[in-house]
């Protein structure tokens, strides 16, 4: 049995985990649930040696152990299957399975034995038809996930952590995985299973532990719980207290999307999506990872090519579909991944804020003296961005303030509709409610706001209207007053097959 006692973890000033005592029962499936940012991944990273706790102890069978690297975790029999694949696409299946622990024979790799054992473990996963010499990069994503799982099965694991293992698997593959989990349990292996999919973990779990805002809020035998109870624990009692709801009157339709489709490798990433956003309205898009929400935003902003469909701003169809054209039409996107898509890390706070509107700050082709500083300062004051000196590097700001910088840049382009992709991801609770306030304020000022959120509480508290996406399609639409947690979760888990029937 594995226990984490009083574990805390701080990143800078952010408390990712506060005094969590988590117990994984031996030979059982221990489900860990919580919203994004609740601290699940942090706890996992601590258990598998990728991070060290700020305080607290880990006990294995009652004995305190130091897990300071993935290697020592392995030595203790703790294995992890990551949600994000950590495979080498340029190497074969067998090479991936034995990466870092190649079998040797007189100093050379023992490829023959590696191949043989790869075949065995693949067969165990119902993949006996797979050739171990095939490159992993050529496999569809579901089979890649199975390779990732096979890699851990090769080890002698006693505790296996699975972080959303089914997110890329088909129903048939999920069944195989669950059979394998059953075999492992029979061998007295302890499973820690992280998932968002209620129906799935209720099927397989023995115990369920709920994390919220870095704290452990509930721990219960699965058969004593029901779906509503779990959702309630995840969301907490009163999410409304944290956020201001926009209550402005809605006006004309600002954004009108009709039949938008983005092609993907296997199926359409965005599949025939139509939606409207009116002035003064905050519209949320809820869904699971991979539902196509980000792709929809990117397509709206001209970052992705669309296969079909139209985007109209203020009743005028914008045909060019380039970023510049969409900016000019009045759309502005605050991207999900600030570091990758939002900020220029080599630049100062000031330069990041004015980046989209440089041409307005010139006279005769040269920057007007002080114009950049004044423009940036105005937005810094307006959005209450905490920064001492505008010339500081953008990287010196906290996550919430960095997010506001990206928002400031977007607002400077005089948008009509703001597109916000997970605007509160990775920011602390205080900044979250500030950003929610800002969104409500924008709607009151007559903007349209379309935002993505994976957090039930947030989307329920902020949005006037919620669209639910699953598998690239909009599967449900709710007004704020008819919204329930169960309905949202159910709609987000609907399978493409069900939609076809609709």
């Amino acid at each position, binding site marked *: 049995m594995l226990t984490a006692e009083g574990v805390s973890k701080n990143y800078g000033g952010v408390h990712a985990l506060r005094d969590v005592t988590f117990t994984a029962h031996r030979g059982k499936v221990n489900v860990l649930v919580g919203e994004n940012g609740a601290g699940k991944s942090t706890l996992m990273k601590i258990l598998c040696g990728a991070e060290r706790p700020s305080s607290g102890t880990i006990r294995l069978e009652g004995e305190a152990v130091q897990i300071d690297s993935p290697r020592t975790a392995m030595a203790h029999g703790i294995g992890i299957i990551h949600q994000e694949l950590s495979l080498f696409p340029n190497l074969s299946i067998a090479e991936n399975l034995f990466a870092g622990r190649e079998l040797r024979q007189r100093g050379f790799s023992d490829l023959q034995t590696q191949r043989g054992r790869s075949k065995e473990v693949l067969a165990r996963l119902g993949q006996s038809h797979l050739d171990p010499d095939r490159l992993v990069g050529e496999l569809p994503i579901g089979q890649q996930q199975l390779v990732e799982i096979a890699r851990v099965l090769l080890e002698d694991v006693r505790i296996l952590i699975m972080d959303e293992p089914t997110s890329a698997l088909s129903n048939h593959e999920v069944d195989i995985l669950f059979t394998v989990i059953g075999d492992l349990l029979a061998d007295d292996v302890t499973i820690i299973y992280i998932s968002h999919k209620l129906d799935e973990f209720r099927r397989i779990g023995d115990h369920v532990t709920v994390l919220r805002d870095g704290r452990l809020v509930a721990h219960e035998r699965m058969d004593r719980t029901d779906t509503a109870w779990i959702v309630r624990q995840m969301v907490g009692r009163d999410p409304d207290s944290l956020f201001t709801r926009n209550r402005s009157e809605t006006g004309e339709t600002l954004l009108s999307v009709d039949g938008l489709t983005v092609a993907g490798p296997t199926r359409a990433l965005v599949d025939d999506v139509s939606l409207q956003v009116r002035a003064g309205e905050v519209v949320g898009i809820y869904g699971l990872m991979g539902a196509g929400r980000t792709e929809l935003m990117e397509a709206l902003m001209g970052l992705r090519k669309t296969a079909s469909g139209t985007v109209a701003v203020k009743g005028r169809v914008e045909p060019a579909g380039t970023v510049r054209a969409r900016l000019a039409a009045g759309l502005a996107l605050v991207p999900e991944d600030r570091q990758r898509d939002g900020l*220029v890390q080599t*630049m100062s706070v000031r330069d990041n804020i004015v980046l989209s509107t440089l041409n307005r700050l010139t006279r005769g082709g040269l920057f007007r003296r002080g114009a950049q500083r004044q423009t940036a300062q105005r937005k810094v004051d307006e959005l209450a961005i905490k920064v001492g000196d505008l010339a500081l590097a953008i990287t010196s700001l906290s996550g919430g303030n960095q997010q506001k910088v990206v928002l400031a840049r977007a607002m400077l382009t005089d948008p009509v509709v703001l597109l916000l992709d997970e605007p509160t991801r990775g920011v602390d609770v205080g900044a979250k409610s*500030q950003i929610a306030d800002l969104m409500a*304020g924008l709607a009151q000022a007559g903007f349209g706001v379309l935002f993505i959120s994976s957090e039930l509480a947030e989307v329920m508290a902020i949005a006037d209207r919620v669209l639910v996406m699953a598998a690239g399609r909009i599967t449900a639409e709710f007004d704020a007053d008819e919204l329930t947690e169960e309905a949202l979760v159910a709609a987000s888990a609907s399978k493409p097959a069900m939609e076809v029937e609709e």
Partner: protein
Amino acid sequence: MSDTDVATPPATTGPAPKRPPGNLARAALLLLKGRTVVVLVILMILFGTMSGEYLSSSNLIVMTKHVAINAILAIGVTFVILTGGIDLSVGSIAGLASMICGGLLFSGLALPGEGTLFLSVGMVILAGVLVGCVVGWVNGVLVTRFKVAPFIATLGMLYVARGFAQLRSEGGTFPNLAGTPERGNTGFHIIGVDRWLGIPVAVWIMVLVAAAAIVVTTRTPFGRQVYAVGGNERAAELAGIRVNRIKVAVYAISGACAALAGLLLTSELGAAYPDTATTYELNAIAAAVLGGTALSGGRGTIVGTVLGAFVIGFLADGLVLVGVSTFWQSVVKGAVIVFAVITATAQQRLEASLAERAA
């Protein structure tokens, strides 16, 4: 917008209370930031004591003229490196421009009918720079439209442009570029040989190019966009910057600068030969890197690059003057470049730790 939206947090935008970072660390940072100047001063003191002639005004002027050509090449290359690219073809572009202009001055432009057209020197120079610009543009199109890695695209162009330079004369040299009054094409020597107010014209040209480049990089939207593309291409794209257009432009600028440098060199030598400026691209890149331009893009200044060119030039000429063998010159130059990059990394690390302490 109404004021209710931001009313919640109290105005705390004043400067955050800072703990003063260690004075030693700050002094070290200052030294690292100004390292190119520091190294330059050390070089001048060192060689000045070893050879009385080194710091004489005549020698300083000669050395600065040597610097001018590399500095102009390096300024062009800096634009490319700022976007995260690289330009290996500048030496060859200089050679090609040299041969094209040499040919125009020496044998003229053969017209399709009969007769030969001789252009004035001004037009010849313009033509040379234009050729450099076009070759650079091709580099940019290869990088953006055809998605060729900058290293490969410009490596290819290094060979292609050099090949065309040799084809222009079947490998021969245009020995006399003086022109004749009847043809109206005298005066090519002005840019590479003559002086104005006691300073070589080439140095004045360098000053002009550097001044223009400083204004463009620091005071225009284009310059800022160059930095943004190099700092984070995806973010630049989302900010509405035409990333591909910026990239094509920097390669064209680099080509134009290279051609100009090639013409200065040709004018100085009084003859155009196909191997003009061979391997000069390496000196130019070295000057940019010495001056603090990050090969990963987004960081660097024109002033730094010019100072870098001074260090390389003054070092090389100093070594010659005190009689160090050419083989050792090469060793020293290489060591200085690597040392410069090590100090650049040290500077960034120190800056980060100071910023962290200040936060």
